[in-house]
């Protein structure tokens, strides 16, 4: 159940604990989602903090047309896209940065409990950014195609097509790495 809307209303009413609850509930997932963009866990963490700061400072209006999580992820995506436009940073993973990988594994391990899912999540890094995003939102966060379309600002049909191609690419990538899975 999505409690984010209620927590956000309480924060707007002056209760800072509502913001605390939002951060507790959505921080890890948002970091991992934004990491699928920037491929840098620390940058994703900064962008996540920027997203929460956007909520805390600007206090944008939540209309309720979508779930609070969808709305929050859309804000995070918008901030990340703005960040990427500003810094024109390539989404290249610095493989030699073991420190980053350790942090990512730490938060990944806390957020993704299933071993199989963690293996899949690792394989996502070798996919195209759009494939990474759509698979993460659908497979790890459990968003429907419509919600994923709202977050990624695409149509549902585009999401369906993107999801089909992403699964196909993921399968190829997993087969290449010797991952065994069941249909």
């Amino acid at each position, binding site marked *: 159940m999505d409690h984010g809307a209620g927590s956000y209303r309480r924060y707007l009413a002056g209760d*800072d604990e509502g*913001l*605390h609850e939002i*951060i*507790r509930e959505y*921080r890890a997932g948002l970091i991992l989602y934004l990491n699928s963009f920037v491929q840098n*866990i*620390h940058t994703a*963490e900064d962008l*996540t*903090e920027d997203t*929460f*700061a956007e909520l*805390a*400072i600007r206090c944008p209006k939540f209309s309720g047309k979508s779930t609070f999580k969808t709305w929050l992820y859309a804000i995070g995506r918008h901030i990340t896209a703005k960040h990427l436009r500003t810094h024109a940073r390539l989404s290249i993973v610095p493989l030699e940065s073991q420190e980053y990988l350790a*942090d990512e594994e*730490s*938060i990944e391990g806390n957020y993704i409990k299933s071993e199989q899912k963690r293996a899949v999540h690792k394989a996502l890094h070798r996919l195209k950014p759009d494939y990474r995003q759509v698979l993460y939102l659908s497979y790890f966060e459990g968003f429907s195609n419509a919600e994923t379309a709202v977050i990624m600002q695409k149509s549902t049909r585009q999401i369906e097509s993107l999801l089909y191609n992403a699964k196909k690419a993921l399968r190829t990538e997993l087969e290449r790495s010797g991952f065994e899975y069941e249909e």
Partner: protein
Amino acid sequence: MKNDEQMYQSVLSRRDAYRTKKERQKRVFLRAVPVLACCCLAAVLGIGYWDHLKKLPEIPSVQVDSEVSGTTLPVTTVPAVTETGQTVTTAARTEKTKVTSAKSTETVTKAVTVTEAAESAAIRQTETQAVTVPTAAQTRPVTQTQPVTQTKPVTEPPAVTTEEPGAPEPPAQTTEPFIPSENPQNPQKEEPGTPQAQPLMYPDIEAAAKAVIDAVINGNCPGNDPREKGAYTSMFGSIMHNGYLYQVSSANGITRQDDRGIMLLPRARYEDIGAACRAVYQGQSYYVAFHYADYRGMTMPEYLQRSMKVTSDKDVTVNGETVCLRFADDGQITANAFVERNDGSDVYYTVRAAVSETEMLDFLNEMQYEKIAVYDYWIL
């Protein structure tokens, strides 16, 4: 990596910093805006005032053309009428001149040029100049004291008298009617350089009526200065509003001096718009003017008090009408009484002469007046 609590504290600190910054900006804004607004307002007012100063009309400087005993004196230029009918201009300096009055021969310090054309207004003007000597009068344009004259030939010489004492003349021939000290409660405060509309002389009442029509209908109003022109326009308008021009009738032993014409009087500080002429009764000369009054439903004493700020010395009843008599120090008597009470255009007369009270009352008892309709001279 930050945990939840650290990220929460970080977000709160960023929010607090943002709010503090906004508060500071708001305070700076609230302090700066009034100051900037005042500066802008001052700049706008300054520019406006500067433009206003640049648009002020320049007062023409006047060349003072005479000096007496090393001191520059005001010059009064008054036209005089000669026996041949030519109008000449004479300049009279303010100096000690002996004049003959009805009661005694005295030496006064004033400009004494008195002409037929200027009548009492010219004397008033001259008196005013004498009062304002020497500072203000030195910059006074000569044209301001020059009466407008439209004269016809007369047979009498100018009334300028500088004769030896001991040869008294009839009082009426020595001084003109107006007495400057008549209105002590209303001192003249006219600024130097302010032009004053002078009376307009016409050969007869018909010529005056035609002039009224010409001014009102055709717009041919005399006067060069805008204020002077405005005074004449107001005068012609008042006459046109009343519809009649008045003059004393030659009847009952009273002889109107037609050869001295009729004078239209613009509004002055001490008299209303009107028409004036001269008459002779039992050898005495009388100045008779008919004025258009502004106040309705008032008695003559009330009107004099409220309009002219003068007080009647004695009220008598002549032909059923209250007549206010005022006695001047030089022997002149001024009589005022209403002759017509129309709705909004009352008419009263002013009779002035250096005669005794009995002679004045006799004249008033015998005096009749006539009026002509101005519209009769409107030729389509």
